[in-house]
């Protein structure tokens, strides 16, 4: 029902998430933000079971900030991703597993941009582009077709728009607006919300 997408470029990562917070058949909120800022250059996008998303994401968020307070420097995106995955894995075989699907996007001053795909079974993969949700089935082939490693920012936004248009055309649910953010060496930038009109 929910949709996350991330596209990594040569020196940036573009991420988008839908804005719907639903409870069974009702849309309770149309402007819900599913992105959690872990640090100045790391974003965690989190979807899944109702309470688990916020609990888990805030737990990771506060721990990443605690690391910075204790050690004086921030966790890199790769380290944050592995930390997140470890936590998911630890809880997986407990009485209270977290059912969340995540995308972690960040910019490391040393390694450059990075996009990490994690799912509720605590798998982790660094990928050039990724998507979560039923919408992923419809859009991954579009990403496969048009993605190239040296996409410019405009081209990436166009590719994102292509994906969203496909969702609007073929996805059974109405996801009419998406939060879009871009991470690069200067930090996290809020971009214009992507909205689609009625079919």
């Amino acid at each position, binding site marked *: 029902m929910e949709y996350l997408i991330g596209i990594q470029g040569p020196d940036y990562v573009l991420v988008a998430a839908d804005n719907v*917070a639903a*409870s069974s*058949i*009702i849309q*309770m*909120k149309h402007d*819900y933000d599913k992105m959690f800022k872990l640090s100045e250059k790391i974003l965690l996008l989190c979807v899944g*079971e*109702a*309470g*688990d998303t*916020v*609990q888990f994401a805030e*737990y990771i968020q*506060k721990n990443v900030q605690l690391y910075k307070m204790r050690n004086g420097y921030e966790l890199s995106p790769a380290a944050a991703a592995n930390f997140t995955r470890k936590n998911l894995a630890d809880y997986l075989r407990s*009485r*209270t*597993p977290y059912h969340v699907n995540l995308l972690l996007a960040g910019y490391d001053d040393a390694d450059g941009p990075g996009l990490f795909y994690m799912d509720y079974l605590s798998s982790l993969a660094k990928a050039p582009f990724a998507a979560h949700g039923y919408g992923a089935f419809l859009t991954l082939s579009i990403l496969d077709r048009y993605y190239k490693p040296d996409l410019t920012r405009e081209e990436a936004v166009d590719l994102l728009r292509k994906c969203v248009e496909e969702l609007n055309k073929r996805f059974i649910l109405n996801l009419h607006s998406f939060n879009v953010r871009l991470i690069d060496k200067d930090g996290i930038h809020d971009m214009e919300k992507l909205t689609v009109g009625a079919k």
Partner: protein
Amino acid sequence: MALEDICNFNCKPMHKSLTFHTLEDTSSSVFTDSFDLKWRAELTSKKTSEVPLEFHVPCLFRRPSSQASQSVSVRRPFPLSHGTTTLGFIFQGGVIAAADTRASAGGLVACPAVHKITPIHSHLVVTSSGSGADCMLWERILIREIRLYQLRHKRRLSIRGTAKLLSFMLHPFKGTDVCVALTLCGWDKDDSLIYVCSDGARLQGDIFSVGSGSPYAYGVLDGSLRWSLSKEEAISLAREAVFRATHRDAYSGNNVDLFHVTAEGWKQRQREDLKEEYYRDMEKKGKKIDLKMQKLPK
């Protein structure tokens, strides 16, 4: 409850001698045992280290996903009550909270005159939906915790903080049969309307409707709600939304309770029987009313 805790009053309830622990007793006993007048001392739970409360979750309550075979589940004597219509919205004149008053247990109307909107403090009311017993208990726990916070920190907790506290208190019971969906409606400089649910959802918004009758209420509210409504228009809109929901939903009905929260606090309107609203609606439509039941127009 709050006064007992703050005074370290060790009152052992009478039925402590029985082998089962009710939730209420264990949480208050934990506080009285280790709360020794250090006003900033807070317990940390082993399970969720962020939560400053320790809850003993009895082994009855276990997540359905685990395979423990020896858990004894208590058979319910009757089906839990779930049906309701509650709503809350923000407009220029404050926050309106409205709810019906029927408590249903399966197909039976267990009580036609329940209070589903409860004041927490002078500037916050909570509408409840889900299991009646759970809601009553958790409202009481919330009132106690907010009062304790106020006594300890000499200021009132914000509504956002209240929602977060409630959400964290409910988290250990996720996956069990606890079913509460509360909408905190209050007057605050930040968020005024927050929905908290035992699934863990915590949403801030401008309009929420919860319960089996909520889709019908949304249908009325989404079309007519504007920021610029006057107080009377907002109240009659809320009443009509509850009326339409109770008209269609079998598990909502009887009367409607309305609360209006402003900077001065909450004000409760007199509880009104929804059949008045029905006759007004019929008159508006120009339909003939049975002479025996004819009411004078308002």
